[in-house]
């Protein structure tokens, strides 16, 4: 031990840092889920390191997906030895099953155990054969596979030399070597790095002969190197980039050197690269002074340090990978991507936000309801509520696309409930609910005991309509559409109506309500944009909705339609809704006809024209658009009816339900009919019900 005038500078080592590639967590999760289960025994893993390759950024000890013992086959070939940037380092992983057991792990003894392994490898000479064991590391972790978050803590065990090693000098390698020597050292290092056999050997000897020829040798050749050189340095791949400090691997290296060869002065070479070649400006050469152990036996394991700090604090690190691992989130981003691609490639002015936020109420979960729901999902609409009183019957699944055989077994599931379940199975991010409820209908009189419950249903329906943005009328009778039409007109909600005949269909959007909430009651049938309101389903009827079901023959009660109709009508209903939502005037948009001279896209809507009514037939494979204005005598949406409803509320509803002619009297249809009948009765007594309107699904 030489005496110095100045107090010795303690050699300070730059700590090593970890870097865990996302792929490691993916692979580990699979391993845990598929194979390990709750088994928490330690797992041998392989870390990867390499010399620093950037003047401003240190290298890390990295974990990749191939760090884990190889389980499944992958498409990519596994890393074989000889990858210069992936020098393998042995490590061990302790993963706990709960966060509590993670916190309770005895970190000190785990660290000691790994340090002991390093010490034993030094004593036994294994470290000379396979020097990567000097950098052995330890990881503790807790993988939360429900939230896809991972908590982890690395330790790089370093044997503490007591008293600490002091630094005599440290300078860039280019200043230490002569230019001839430097050239030879660089060349030797590059050869070492280029050869598959040695490129991942991180500790080595640099021997420089008196004629400036350098050679790189394995550690185990140390005895053979004696006397052969003018300079002999202990070289290692230094991950650190700092000009005034060597990296962490030097710690255990010095412990090895002291133990095996009892040197008091150690010349070391911190090897660093840039652009794949040895960089002797970045690399350092230093001289350290080591106090030899006095009376220490080989059995006493020195103390160890090495838990990695997290931004300077002694806490573990954590990472959340829900965005890339949670299957539901992955499904959501895939669906969103699909819509964004549509906007990018075809409809740049498409407003996707309005679609993802619109709340749809589907009255009826039968053939039309199922098709509408499916198509709404395709447009990215997530918020769907079903109202249906019925259960899934055995004949349903073939035509009602949300149901399967399982739904009808036994007593049969309620449609509203089965539909919700089905939507969630298709796309877990759906926000959907079902209401099992019958819609009160005029012309189906009720007893006084039933009054309260029927009025309760009316209130429920009214609340549902208030709390949604768009309502689809998809029930199987004409009269069941009356109350919803009234309520939508009252609340000024978008109503889309679809109805089926045997081989024909009708899809329409109702016009805006007669009075918006802020308008004066005097503004009859005039909406904000000062054009006539579009009509509703009942505007063209001269009879009020009445009981269309009792006394019909059996084949009229069970509605029969060609199967292709429901998908067509359901799809058109959704496209009509999307058209309304994208239109700048929304519910007030005027009705277009396809017969008008519309060349290509309408200016108002990027999607094309926005008709009022669409009627089509599969017997002709034809389809037309129609336009109808609101009628002053409409039993559902006229100002008369709406104001009466607002004035009298429940008693109005009850009267409409119980008295077949009440609505006709109220709206003046009775008068109208009398006036019509008083004319010449040469008229053929046509069916008062319009084919396309009365015979429904």
């Amino acid at each position, binding site marked *: 031990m030489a005496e110095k005038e100045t107090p010795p500078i303690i050699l300070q080592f730059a700590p090593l840092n970890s870097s865990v590639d996302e*792929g490691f967590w993916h692979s580990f999760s699979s391993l845990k889920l598929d194979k390990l289960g709750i088994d928490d025994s330690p797992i041998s893993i392989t870390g990867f390191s390499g010399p620093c390759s950037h003047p401003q950024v240190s290298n890390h000890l990295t974990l990749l997906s191939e760090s884990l013992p190889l389980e499944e086959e992958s498409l*990519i070939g596994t890393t074989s030895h000889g990858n210069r940037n992936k020098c393998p380092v042995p490590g061990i992983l302790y993963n706990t099953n709960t966060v509590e057991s993670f916190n309770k792990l005895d970190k000190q003894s785990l660290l000691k155990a790994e340090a002991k392994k390093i010490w034993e490898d030094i004593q036994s000479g294994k470290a000379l054969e396979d020097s990567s064991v000097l950098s052995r590391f330890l990881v503790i972790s807790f993988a939360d596979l429900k939230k896809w978050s991972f908590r982890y*803590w690395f330790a790089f065990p370093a044997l503490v030399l007591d008293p600490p090693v002091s630094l005599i000098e440290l300078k860039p390698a280019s200043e230490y070597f002569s230019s001839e020597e430097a050239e030879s050292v660089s060349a030797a290092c590059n050869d070492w790095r280029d050869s598959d056999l040695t490129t991942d050997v991180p500790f080595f000897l640099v021997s420089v002969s008196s004629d400036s020829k350098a050679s790189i040798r394995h550690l185990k050749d140390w005895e053979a190197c004696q006397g052969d050189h003018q300079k002999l340095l202990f070289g290692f791949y230094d991950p650190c980039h700092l000009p005034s400090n060597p990296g962490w691997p030097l710690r255990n290296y010095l412990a090895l050197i002291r133990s095996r060869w009892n040197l008091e002065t150690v010349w070391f070479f911190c090897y660093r690269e840039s652009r794949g070649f040895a960089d002797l400006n970045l690399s350092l050469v230093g001289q350290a002074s080591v106090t030899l152990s006095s009376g220490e036996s080989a059995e006493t394991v020195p103390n160890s340090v090495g838990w990695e700090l*997290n931004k300077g604090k002694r*806490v*573990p690190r954590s990472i959340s990978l829900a*965005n890339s691992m949670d299957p539901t989130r992955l499904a959501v981003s895939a669906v969103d991507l699909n819509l964004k691609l549509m906007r990018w490639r075809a409809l740049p002015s498409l407003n996707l936000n309005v679609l993802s936020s619109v709340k749809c109420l589907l009255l009826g979960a039968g053939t039309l309801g199922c098709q509408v729901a499916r198509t709404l999902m395709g447009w990215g609409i997530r918020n769907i509520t079903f109202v249906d009183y019925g259960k899934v019957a055995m004949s349903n699944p073939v035509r009602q696309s949300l149901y399967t055989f399982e739904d009808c077994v036994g007593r049969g599931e309620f449609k509203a409930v089965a539909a919700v379940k089905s939507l969630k199975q298709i796309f877990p991010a759906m926000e959907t609910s079902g209401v099992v409820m019958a819609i009160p209908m005029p012309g189906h009189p009720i007893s006084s005991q039933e009054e309260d419950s029927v009025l309760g249903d009316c209130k429920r329906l009214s609340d549902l309509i208030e709390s949604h943005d768009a309502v689809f009328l998809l029930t199987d009778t004409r009269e069941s559409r009356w109350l919803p039409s009234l309520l939508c007109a009252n609340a000024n909600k978008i109503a889309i109506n679809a109805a089926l005949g045997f081989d024909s269909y009708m899809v329409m959007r109702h016009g805006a309500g007669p009075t918006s909430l802020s308008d004066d009651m005097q503004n009859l049938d005039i909406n904000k944009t000062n054009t006539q309101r579009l009509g509703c389903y009942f505007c063209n009827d001269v009879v009020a909705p009445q009981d269309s079901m009792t006394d019909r023959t059996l084949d009229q009660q069970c509605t029969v339609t060609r199967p292709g109709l429901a998908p067509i009508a359901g799809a058109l209903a959704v496209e009509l809704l999307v058209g309304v939502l994208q239109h700048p005037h929304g519910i007030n948009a005027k009705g277009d006809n396809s017969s008008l001279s519309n060349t290509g896209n309408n200016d108002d809507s990027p999607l094309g024209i926005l008709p009022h009514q669409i009627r089509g037939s599969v017997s002709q494979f034809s389809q037309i658009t129609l336009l109808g204005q609101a009628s002053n005598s409409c039993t559902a949406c006229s100002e008369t009816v709406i104001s009466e409803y607002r004035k009298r509320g429940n008693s109005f509803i009850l009267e409409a339900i119980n008295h077949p002619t009440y609505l006709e009297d109220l709206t003046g249809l009775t008068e109208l009919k009398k006036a019509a009948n008083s004319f010449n009765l040469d008229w053929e007594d046509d069916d008062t019900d319009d084919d396309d309107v009365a015979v429904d699904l």
Partner: protein
Amino acid sequence: MDSAREVSDGRLTVEGFSVASRAFADKWKIHNQSFPPWSWVPLINRTLLVSKKQEEGYLSLEKIIILSSLEEEIPEDESLNVATDCLEKEETVDHTILVPTMENEAHYYDFHIVYSASYKVPVLYFRGYCSGGEPLALDVIKKDVPSCSVSLLLESKWTFITQEEHPYLNRPWFKLHPCGTEDWIKLLSQSSSSSGCQMPIVLYLVSWFSVVGQVVGLRIPLEMLN
């Protein structure tokens, strides 16, 4: 066996991609030494009994470091502080550990050029991550790699960044959507070559990358296009 030396429809076959990739990687190594070289990662197709002459694979350029000067506000997880008490008391105080000064956060970028069998064109996949391994979000990436919009081809009409499953690594990477590639490759070949839309295979990836690389801030020197 595909013996054509040129493509006229803007598209590549699998073999063409392999040839073009080698040519691209070689030229890059010669002309673009400020960057590390691209490496070819072969795919091992264990199910296929017939071995192909040209192996399938993709080009990889990894660990490009961009120093970010942004102060990153990563929300601290309070529950992490719980575990530290026992560690404080027992661990020996060690003065030989350098206390590091806070430095600029380094962002790492990986780029893969992968062949798309359905579009028959190359596709650029990329991702960014911090030194600890946390993936970077697209808005952070965009700050790191401002795209230059020199030519008409870089308008949003042609470049659309999406996040999709990497075809071989089973996790989401960002990619430049290949929809328009065929069309603008044809445009490129029209402008440069005298014989209509012919594009020599060995130049395909170089030409392709001269456009696509700019979106992710990777320029190639003009010499590579010769």
